[in-house]
C-alpha cells in the first residue's frame, strides 16, 4: 500500500455521507422553508398588525385582532359554531359510509373494481363541476332531488335557501364527494389484515359481527385515527365547496371558518384580522388533532 492510500481523506466517510444526505433533502427542505415556514411566520406577524390591503398601511396592534375576534365579534362565534356543526355532521357520516363501503368492496367479486371506481370518481372530479351539478339537482321545486321526493309523496325543502337544510345539503354533498378517499384507505387497511385472523376466529366460533367488533375494528384503529384526523382537518379547512354551493349563506348559515377568513382577507381586505383568524383556526385544528391522538393512545 502506498503512503498516499494510508493518508486520512480530507472528509471522513461520515462527513461525506452527511453531506450527501443534506444534498438530497435540500430541495424539499428549501420548498418547506420558503412555502410553509416562511408564510406561517408571516401570518403570525400579520396577525399582530392592522394591515389594510388597499391602503398598504401596516400598524402593529399587538393582540387586538385576537381580542376583537374572540371577545367582540359575534359573527366569529357563529362561524366557529357553523364549522363545528359541519365537522360533527361530516366526519362521522364520512367515516361510517367509508367503512361500510370498504367492508363491502374489500372482498373479491365480479365488478368490484367498477364499484370502487364509481365511489372514488367524485374525489378526482372538479370541485366546480361537482358544485354546479349539485346546485342544479338541489334546486327548489324543479330540482331533481325534490322531483324524486315528490314521486314518493315527500315535499322537499328548498335545500340551499333554508339555513338548516343548506348545512345538511353541503355536508351530504361533501361526504359523497370525499368518501371515496377514506374508503380506499380503509380498503387498504382491511386487505392488510391477515386472512388467518378471520379464519382462526371463525374456527373458534365467532360470528361475523364478533369478528368485526373484536378483531377487525380494533386492528383498523391506526387507520381510523389517521382518517379521523385528516377528515376533521379537512372539514375545518373546507372552502371551495361552500364558496361554490352557498357562498356562506343563507343568513350566514353555512359560513364556515375558512370561508370567513377568505372574506375578511380578500373581500374586506383586512389582512391583519384574517391572519389572526387563521391562527385561531390553526390552534383549533391542532388542539383537536392532539385530543384525538391522546384518546387513541389512551385506548391502546
Amino acid at each position, binding site marked *: 500500500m502506498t503512503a498516499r492510500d494510508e493518508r486520512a481523506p480530507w472528509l471522513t466517510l461520515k462527513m461525506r455521507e452527511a453531506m450527501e444526505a443534506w444534498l438530497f433533502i435540500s430541495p424539499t427542505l428549501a420548498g418547506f422553508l420558503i412555502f410553509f415556514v416562511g408564510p406561517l411566520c408571516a401570518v403570525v406577524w400579520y396577525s399582530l398588525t392592522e394591515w389594510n390591503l388597499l391602503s398598504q398601511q401596516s400598524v402593529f396592534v399587538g393582540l387586538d385582532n385576537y381580542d376583537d375576534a374572540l371577545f367582540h365579534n359575534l359573527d366569529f362565534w357563529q362561524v366557529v359554531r357553523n364549522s363545528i356543526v359541519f365537522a360533527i355532521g361530516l366526519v362521522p357520516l364520512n367515516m361510517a359510509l367509508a367503512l361500510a363501503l370498504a367492508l363491502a368492496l374489500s372482498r373479491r367479486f365480479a365488478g368490484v373494481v367498477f364499484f370502487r371506481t364509481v365511489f372514488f370518481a367524485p374525489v378526482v372530479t372538479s370541485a366546480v363541476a361537482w358544485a354546479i351539478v349539485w346546485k342544479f339537482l338541489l334546486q327548489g321545486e324543479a330540482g331533481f332531488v325534490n322531483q324524486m321526493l315528490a314521486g314518493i309523496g315527500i315535499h322537499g325543502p328548498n335545500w340551499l335557501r333554508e339555513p338548516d337544510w343548506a348545512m345538511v345539503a353541503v355536508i351530504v354533498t361533501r361526504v359523497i364527494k370525499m368518501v371515496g378517499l377514506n374508503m380506499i384507505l380503509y380498503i387498504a387497511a382491511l386487505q392488510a389484515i*391477515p386472512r*388467518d*385472523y378471520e*379464519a*382462526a*376466529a*371463525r*374456527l*373458534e*366460533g*365467532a*360470528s361475523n359481527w*364478533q369478528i368485526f367488533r*373484536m*378483531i377487525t375494528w*380494533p*386492528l383498523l*384503529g391506526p387507520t381510523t385515527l389517521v382518517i379521523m384526523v385528516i377528515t376533521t382537518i379537512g372539514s375545518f379547512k373546507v372552502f371551495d365547496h361552500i364558496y361554490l354551493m352557498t357562498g356562506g349563506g343563507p343568513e350566514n348559515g353555512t359560513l364556515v371558518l375558512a370561508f370567513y377568513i377568505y372574506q375578511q382577507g380578500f373581500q374586506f381586505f383586512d389582512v391583519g384580522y384574517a391572519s389572526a383568524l387563521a391562527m385561531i383556526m390553526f390552534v383549533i385544528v391542532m388542539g383537536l388533532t392532539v385530543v384525538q391522538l391522546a384518546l387513541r393512545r389512551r385506548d*391502546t
Partner: protein
Amino acid sequence: MSSLTLRNLKKRFGRVDVIRGVTLDVADGEFVVFVGPSGCGKSTLLRMISGLEDVTDGELRIGNRVVNEVQPAKRGVAMVFQSYALYPHLNVRDNMGFGLKVRKVPAAERQQRVSEAAALLKLDALLDRFPRELSGGQRQRVAIGRAIVGHPDVFLFDEPLSNLDAELRVHMRSEIAALHKRLGNTMIYVTHDQVEAMTLADKIVVLRDGRIEQVGSPRELYEQPDNIFVAQFIGSPKMNILPAGSAAGFGAQPAGAVSVGVRPEHLSLVAPEKGQIGGKVVISEYTGASSLLHIRLDSGETCLVVVDGDAPEADMKVGLLAGTDNLHHFDTDGMALRKSRLLM
C-alpha cells in the same frame, strides 16, 4: 376424541382440481402427517377438514358425523396456523381465551381453562404479554394453547414450525410429540419437511397433485415405497434411481423392472476392482458425521453415496456395493415391483 374418515374427497377452485378424490381413514388418537411438495393440496385438504374450505364432492366424517355442511366451529376441531394467527391487539390470556369468550363460557371457567393450558405449555409467566413481545417459539406455544383450551376432538396443524429457526424447530417438534402423548387426541399435521413427518407421525400420507401417493408408517414408506415419487420424496439425501441396465451389476432383476432404486446410505464404497459397479468421485461434500459423494458411474449416470468416516477425494476411482435387500425395482410406470410379488 374422534376418528376421521375421508371418502373420495374432492375440491375444485374454478376450473382447477386441487384435491382429486382422497380416501383416508384416521383412527382415534392417531398422529397423521400430510407431506408433499408445494401445491400438492395438503393445506387445502387440512382446511377442508377444518371447514374453512367447503367440500366440492365426497364425504367427510369426524367421529360418526358427516360434517360436509357443518360450520367450522361445530366440527370439534382446532387449528394451529403457520402464521400463528395470534391477534396482535390481545394479550396471551385474551388470545387463548378468545374462543371461550365468543362462545360465552363464564369468566371463571374461562380463566381456569386458560390457566390449565398455560401451565401445560409453560406459558404462566407470559399471560399478560402481547404477541409482539414474544419470541417465535413462545408465539407457537400460545397458538397451540389457544387450540387446547377449546378441548377439541381433533387438532389440525398447518406447517406450524415453518417460521422457526432450525434449532427451535427441533425443540418444538419434541414438544408437539410430548403433547400428543399427554393429550392423546387425533392430530393431523401438514408439513413439507420430511424429517418432521418421519419423527412425529404414526402414519404419513404422501400427496402429489391432489392425490394420495401412499399411506403408511414412516418405516413402511422408507423401506417399501409404492413408487418412484414416494421413494425419492422420503429419505434424505433422496434415493438414487438408475436405469435397470446401469444397475445390472448389483444383481438379478425381476421381470418388468426398468429402474432400480438404492438409497445413498445403503451403498458401500470399495476398491474399484471389488465393486459391483464402478465410477469416479466427482464431488465430495464433508458434512461432519459423514460425507456425501457425487459419483459419476461408468455408465454415465450420477449417483449419491453417504460415507461415514474418511471419504475419497474428488477424481478418485471407486467401486460400489449394494445388498439385494436394499434394492427397489420399479416398472415402466414408476410403480414398485414388490419383493413378495416377485417371489410368487
